[in-house]
């Protein structure tokens, strides 16, 4: 019971860090880092934190209207953002991985 509560506390910690993985096509805009850890409660928090820390990424991820660009997909673990019930408000828990997957065309 105590263990469960501790686990629950840890998972709901507001200052939990989200792991964000960026593809090679975007890492030039964030200092070459492919993996970043940012404090975030939700996917939206994580992406906001990402572009706040690396402003050059903003126009690659977000349209001027604020929505995610159509050639960029965001996954929480193995699930695509738009298939998640809460979308950008989906809670991020300890150990979760947010993956940014853009279209690439090399062949």
């Amino acid at each position, binding site marked *: 019971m105590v263990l469960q509560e501790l686990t629950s506390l840890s998972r709901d910690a507001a200052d939990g860090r989200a792991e964000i993985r960026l593809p*090679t*096509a975007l890492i030039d805009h964030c200092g070459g880092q492919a993996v970043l850890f940012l404090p975030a409660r939700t996917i939206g928090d994580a992406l906001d934190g990402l572009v706040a820390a690396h402003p050059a990424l903003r126009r690659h991820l977000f349209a001027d209207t604020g929505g995610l660009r159509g050639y960029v997909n965001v996954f929480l673990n193995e699930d695509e953002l738009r298939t998640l019930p809460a979308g950008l408000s989906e809670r991020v828990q300890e150990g979760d991985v947010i993956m940014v997957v853009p*279209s*690439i*065309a090399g*062949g």
Partner: protein
Amino acid sequence: MNGLSASELKRYSRHLALPDVGIEGQLALRAGKVAIVGAGGLGSPTGMYLAAAGVGKIGLIDFDVVDLTNLQRQVLFSTDDVGRGKVESAAARLRGINPDVDVIGHNVRLASDNALDILSGYDVVIDGTDNFPTRYLVNDACVLLGKPYIYGSILRFEGQVSVFDAQRGPCYRCLFREPPPPGLVPSCAEGGVLGVLPGIIGSLQALETLKLLIGAGDSLIGRLALFDALSFRWRELKLKKNDDCPACGVNPTITALIDYEDFCGLKGTAMSSDTPGAVREITATELKKRLDAGEALTLVDVREPYEWDIANLEAYGAKLIPLGDITDRADEIDRSREIVVYCRSGKRSESAVRHLQGQGFDNIWNLRGGINGWATEVDPDMGTY
């Protein structure tokens, strides 16, 4: 008796030993018809493995010729093939691997006016192209024809692979609703690619094709596999059909092939300086003449740092601002003088010029043919890449 000749029984003996293949599976491969769009890095391993496996009919679609820069990864070709047509060279190679395979060469650029006609002759379509317009074209043609589309894509050290089949799962447009603006996502020519990477991803495309033809195993339909070669990490993501997809959704709006160059924003580049909003071009010869005459010009190189190290125009005061940084660093460009922007071949710099024009830079030119044009016209010792 069993449908395979004595020679086939021997050639495919390792397939016949597999419970999931056997004689029935081998006959299915022999009856299979597969189109490979693009005889490049991905098309090389897919073509070779499909031919070796005994796929009955392989269609190769490409319009290009073999270039020296291809050989680092396009293992279909040898040094002697440089300058030859890709389809002709590749077809000869595949026939050499397996003379029983019917190799059909389509020495054309796949386009809206021929794609349905060409691809309708095949059961499965493999995408080994290197550009966004053709990828959307292949996807839409496959959706309209009801054929599976074996997707693979690579850049630097990363690859993506999936199987799109609108009748059983999502299509390419379900995942990527719109193409990136021209110049935003680097191509392999710009960003580079490790030579073995298309070997890995293309082999997986061949694998998924063979599984579909045989009807064995679990297909990648509804899944996207990502490979990062540097960290040796695989990830598998779930893909779902998008009900709003314009190609395969509930109410599709794409009921015929469209203009894919236009869709990807690659049209409307008027070269006349009289056209409002057009990108003005200057040739390397003309630029050299003006520089030699002592004209003060601002030269901006929008390539990547590694390209700058290969060759640059620093001797003429060029400044490196990679295309991805051009928005943030536009204020570093001296706009009191005429500006000439260049890249490797002239495409990225055209995109940069358009962008800068939008920010009020009006006295600005694109170097036609990029630094490769400069090397060809002005400084042959520089070499092209």
